[in-house]
């Protein structure tokens, strides 16, 4: 299958070129840095809640108030969705022709589904005791942790598995 021309069009746009080639410190690496901060918020907050659901710190930490952490997770996700789009505008061929990118998105989608399911299943019924709440989330918490590790791993692997750096340009050594 030929690489769709639209990627070249995007890469030749003013915005895409600016992100990649600007001398400003607020170009590509700034967007990448914000993407890392977003993941720290999203994965960090979800990890904290998962650990509590799995029983760590449970002796005196009420579970109900941890529902507030989902807002942090959604802010982290929002930051990463926006920065992610800008990263794709900068290097569309590189990402969209790399199967690893689609695996990463699938892992994230699954992790978000688990995250939402955790919110409704564990924190949905305020009449439940903390113990009952946690019991409803054990499998979800384990899946959450595993999926975020998968998302981080596939994300990291993108830099090592791409075929094209730009439309028509293979990766160095490729």
């Amino acid at each position, binding site marked *: 299958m030929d690489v769709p021309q639209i990627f070249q069009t995007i890469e030749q746009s003013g915005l895409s070129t600016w992100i990649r080639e600007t001398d400003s410190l607020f170009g590509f690496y700034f967007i990448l840095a914000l993407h890392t901060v977003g993941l720290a918020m999203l994965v*960090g907050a979800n*990890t904290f809640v998962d650990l509590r659901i799995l029983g760590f710190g449970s002796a005196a930490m009420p579970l109900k*108030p941890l529902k507030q952490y989902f807002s942090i997770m959604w802010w982290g996700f929002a930051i990463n969705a926006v920065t992610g789009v800008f990263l794709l505008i900068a290097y569309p061929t590189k990402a969209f022709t790399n199967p690893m990118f689609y695996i990463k998105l699938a892992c994230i989608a699954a992790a978000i589904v688990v995250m939402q399911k955790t919110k409704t299943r564990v924190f949905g019924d305020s009449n439940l005791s903390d113990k009952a709440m946690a019991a409803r989330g054990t499998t979800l918490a384990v899946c959450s942790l595993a999926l975020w590790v998968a998302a981080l791993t596939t994300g*990291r692997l993108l830099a090592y598995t791409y075929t094209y750096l730009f439309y028509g340009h293979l990766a160095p050594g490729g």
Partner: protein
Amino acid sequence: MPSFTHPFVVWLAHTKFSELMVQSKWWWAFMMDMHFIGLSLLIGVIGALDLRMLGFAKDIPLAPMHKLVPFAIVGFVINLITGVLAFIGMPIFYTYDTAFWLKMFAILLAGVNVGVFYLTGVFRKVEGLGAGEDAPISAKLIAASSMFLWISVIMLGRYIQVFEDTISSGR
């Protein structure tokens, strides 16, 4: 850079261990992957604690949250190990990179911040913070500094690639 660093860094770059670190891109990818997992553990726990001191999710008592600090330490240790191995793998690259040293400085400051928290009695003041109780201003300052420093560490880490070769080797 002091002039004695260059011969040391060049020597390190030519050791078998250094070459081993960069031999396989999959090993490098694995180390960097662990580095991100470590940061997630660190930020997840320390971020929650800092935010609590700053007033977020105040209905959680502080002491049980603090019980999760070992996970943050595990995260930090993972990053310390992978960081040292990465440095050994590419010593010239990191030594002459401004962003790398700024990142190390930020980590040092974060460490000093931790020291201040535990050694000046601020921790003792917030240890018993119950549901709904506000942390004293000293704790808020430390928590805000902690958040600022760790976010700086993350961002500076991403800029290491940008600031390659920005320090003169003084040869």
